[in-house]
């Protein structure tokens, strides 16, 4: 098996092993063992850099469902490698950090199992070439994110936040799946590379634009783009290492990855350019605007993440214009945006990861994240302060930090996009640099809030529960490494640019030449530099007069529209569906039978009549022996006698007569497997009846109106008639080809002489497998309903 396939599988296998290992090792923190997984994978991926930077790609494939064209195919190019390195690298740092962050009272095996599950799923998303495999891993990341947000599930907010994130991202995921299926029905392929190579012929197809918007829906919900951003701030209920890892560095980048990956498919159209750019810009602005008003440091970082994701998204939108020009020199000019997006993607992970860890340290060492209670921590947390300064200043775009470089490029790209001679950008393009600049000013302001209101100003010992002290060394290692990266990238950006970003550009913008520039900090005095200086000046003024202008937030309603919309929609949905359900789920068994039989009569009987299958042919019927007639008469008598049974026991026994007679018929017709099954089922059912006997209410005659009785009689007779007619016409009608030839070589293929089992266990084993799964779930359902019915009150008491 190819090593990249193994790289995806290893985290899953490790997660499966955790429960078994955990009990053995006892005292040692299991995190130390888990740490080895991402570290080893990171080293493996680092060794792939030379291969990728020389312009090669890595691919491998194993068959999964070959009959549907679904293969577990792996494809690694520059873009995949960047994300794989982020996933494993950040994973290593976050696990190291979490060893010190989590308390031993937390359920560590769960935490690390979920984290590994996520890591494997995320690697699957970025390394696969097959759309359906991508979708499966995509939803797995949503599920592991749900589990991690609800890690402290005794808190109500955690559960609500987890539910919100799951509902929104899975909703988008379904849309994306529909988009993928549309792409397949257009091009006939699930392979992204194949679709890219043939999509040129299908741009006029009627499904092209629906697919475009549905894929974007998936990307926007996952990457928390406006107006779907509302789940991300609530996801901050997760432990801080999770927020640093999933909700800023990796999982929320999956949507951005998707947009980047699909740029060669949909890029170069006006819809893609404007949708991605504008949604990105609105998110950029709105996230930054909301971040300034936050008083919880983590909420501030959440909105700032939303905002930064919008920035990267808008850059990918602008960059897509380059595909319109191809190898012409304009391609390089607009393609710069894509390069900046990739660059900022890496930079954002470094500084935001560091900042989340800083906030985690503050929360852990001081006991609160509330800005109103914090202040003057410089005396207690000097090392943490250093990391906070490095992270925030990079986020604000100050020089000496990597954020400066990508921010400058962002301004360049936005100015370029404003002058785009396409997509009516001449009249509307000026919006782009204006929004970019305004949002950057706000970004500068909240970055300053983060540093100065936490570490400087007055220290309020009375507002704090415990005396703050510097974090243990282990907690400081990870933010230290990220801080070194932040500064390191500023001084040697081309190391990253040449080896990872350039090869990624080749697959993102195929045919565009020279869009990957040499990154340098100093371009001489130009518009971008003036914009940056303006950001610093206006941002500083905004920060200084924060108290005065913050009043404008009061004008806006407290809980803004989208959250209210979401809650109302959810509660309305719940109310309506419970109304509909209770209208027909009456708890009255005869009603349910009425629905079932009515449906059967209409569906089966109706299709029998409509398809013209109602023909009888008695020519080849076998002669009817006397004992079969006798058995049939016994069954009829038993069936009619049930109607007049005076006690429940009689009814049960008569029902048993019916069941065993059917078993005898199976024997007569030489179906030993069916006869055996029928016999054992009858026996077990009788035992079940005996057990339920105590619980059943008094047996009493049904007192129903005449109308109901007639209605029931009609349903009963037409049900019996339908069955009889179907049974009689089976022999005389051939609507479809016989499938028996399919099983002709059963002995050669399966080596089994019992064809019934050959069908169950081999030909149609998928059915059997899923049936056993259904049986298992039903069993669990019965178990939980009966055993845990008294559990409601304990659950309420456990709520906090």
């Amino acid at each position, binding site marked *: 098996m190819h090593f990249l396939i193994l790289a995806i599988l290893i985290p899953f296998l490790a997660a499966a092993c955790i429960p078994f290992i955990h009990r053995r090792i006892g005292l040692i923190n299991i995190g130390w063992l888990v740490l080895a997984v991402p570290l080893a994978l990171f080293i493996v991926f680092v060794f792939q850099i030379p291969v990728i930077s020389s312009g090669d790609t890595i691919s491998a494939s194993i068959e999964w469902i070959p009959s549907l064209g679904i293969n577990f195919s792996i494809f690694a190019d520059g873009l995949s490698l960047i994300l794989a390195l982020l996933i494993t690298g950040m994973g290593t740092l976050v696990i190291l950090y979490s060893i010190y962050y989590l308390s031993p009272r937390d359920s560590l095996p769960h935490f690390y199992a979920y984290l590994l599950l996520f890591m494997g799923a995320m690697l699957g998303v970025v390394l696969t070439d097959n759309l359906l495999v991508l979708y499966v891993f995509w939803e797995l990341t949503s599920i592991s994110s749900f589990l991690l947000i609800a890690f402290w599930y005794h808190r109500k907010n955690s559960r609500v936040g987890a539910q919100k994130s799951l509902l929104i991202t899975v909703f988008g995921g379904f849309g994306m799946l529909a988009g993928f299926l549309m792409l397949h029905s257009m091009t006939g392929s699930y392979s992204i590379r194949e679709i890219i190579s043939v999509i040129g012929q299908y741009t006029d197809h009627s499904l092209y634009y629906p697919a475009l918007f549905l894929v974007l829906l998936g990307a926007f919900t996952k990457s928390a783009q406006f107006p779907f951003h509302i789940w991300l701030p609530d996801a901050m209920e997760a432990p801080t290492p999770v927020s640093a890892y999933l909700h800023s560095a990796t999982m929320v980048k999956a949507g951005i990855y998707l947009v980047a990956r699909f740029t060669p498919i949909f890029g170069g159209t006006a819809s893609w350019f404007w949708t991605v750019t504008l949604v990105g810009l609105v998110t950029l602005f709105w996230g930054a605007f909301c971040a300034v008003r936050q008083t919880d440091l983590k909420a501030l970082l959440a909105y700032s993440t939303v905002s930064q994701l919008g920035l990267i998204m808008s850059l990918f939108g602008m960059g897509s214009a380059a595909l319109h020009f191809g190898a012409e020199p304009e391609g390089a000019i607009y393609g710069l945006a894509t390069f900046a997006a990739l660059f900022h993607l890496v930079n954002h992970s470094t500084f935001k990861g560091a900042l989340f860890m800083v906030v985690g340290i503050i929360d852990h060492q001081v006991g609160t994240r509330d800005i109103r209670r914090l202040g003057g921590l410089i005396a207690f947390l000097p090392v943490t302060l250093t990391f906070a300064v490095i992270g925030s200043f990079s986020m604000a775009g100050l020089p000496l930090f990597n954020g400066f470089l990508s921010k400058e490029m962002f301004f360049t790209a936005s100015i370029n996009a404003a002058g785009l001679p396409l997509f009516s950008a001449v009249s509307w393009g000026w919006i782009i640099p204006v929004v970019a600049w305004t949002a950057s000013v706000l970004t500068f302001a909240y970055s300053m809030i983060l540093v100065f209101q936490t570490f400087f100003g007055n220290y309020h010992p009375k507002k704090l529960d415990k005396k703050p002290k510097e974090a243990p060394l282990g907690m400081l290692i990870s933010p230290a490494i990220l801080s070194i990266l932040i500064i390191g990238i500023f001084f040697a950006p081309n190391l990253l640019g040449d080896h990872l970003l350039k090869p990624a550009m080749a697959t993102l913008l195929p045919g565009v030449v020279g869009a990957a520039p040499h990154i340098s900090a100093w371009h001489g005095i130009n518009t971008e530099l003036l914009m940056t200086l303006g950001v610093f000046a206006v941002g500083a003024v905004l920060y200084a007069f924060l108290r005065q202008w913050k009043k404008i937030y009061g004008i806006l309603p407290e809980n803004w529209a989208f959250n209210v919309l979401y809650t109302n929609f959810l509660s309305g949905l719940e109310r309506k569906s419970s109304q509909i359900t209770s209208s027909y789920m009456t708890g009255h068994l005869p009603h349910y039978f009425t629905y079932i039989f009515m449906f059967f009569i209409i569906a089966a009987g109706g299709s029998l009549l409509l398809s013209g299958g109602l023909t009888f042919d008695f020519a080849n019927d076998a002669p009817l022996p006397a004992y079969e007639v006798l058995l049939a008469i016994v069954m009829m008598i038993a069936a009619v006698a049930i109607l007049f049974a005076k006690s429940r026991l009689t009814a049960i026994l008569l029902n048993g007569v019916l069941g065993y007679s059917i078993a005898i018929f199976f024997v007569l017709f030489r179906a030993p497997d069916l006869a055996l099954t029928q016999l054992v089922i009858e026996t*077990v059912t009788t035992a079940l009846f005996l057990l339920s006997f105590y619980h059943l209410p008094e047996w009493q005659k049904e007192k129903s109106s005449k109308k109901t009785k007639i209605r029931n009689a009609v349903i009963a007779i037409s049900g019996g008639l339908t069955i009889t007619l179907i049974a009689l016409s089976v022999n005389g009608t051939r609507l479809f080809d016989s499938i028996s030839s399919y099983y002709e070589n059963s002995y050669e293929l399966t080596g089994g002489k019992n064809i019934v089992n050959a069908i*169950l266990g081999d030909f149609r084993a998928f059915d*059997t497998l899923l049936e056993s799964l259904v049986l*298992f779930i039903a069993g669990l359902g019965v178990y939980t309903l009966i055993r845990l019915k008294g559990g409601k009150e304990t659950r309420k008491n456990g709520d906090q």
Partner: protein
Amino acid sequence: MEINDVILKTVAKAVVLIIFTFGIYLLLSGHNEPGGGFIGGLVLASAFVLMFLSYDSETVSDAIPIDFNKLSAFGVLLALSSAIIPMFFGQAFLNQSFGYFDLPIYGKTELATVTIFEVGIALTVIGVVVNIILSISEDE
């Protein structure tokens, strides 16, 4: 359930053994003769049910410490893994193989991976059936 019946208990002891043997026979012979995972599982489950009926459930639970929830989960996992493992040998999902081997006592015998799948199904059936019946019988 408090049933104190000496005859039933004595008969049950003998019969349960027969049913168990029969169930396992059905399970293993399903490849070539009537039987198979589902029927074998049902027969085995009915043996358990007979035990629970003739003795009270605490006595049986002490004698056979099986968590039937876990048993059915294990069965599903076994069936699933017998479906997935062929993929590691370059075959399709759920592809079963068989071969003929010379075994010491049995002579030339056919061994098929489908038996593992059938055992998984049987364990699921046993777990679910016994679990449902136990849950209902212990419900107050």
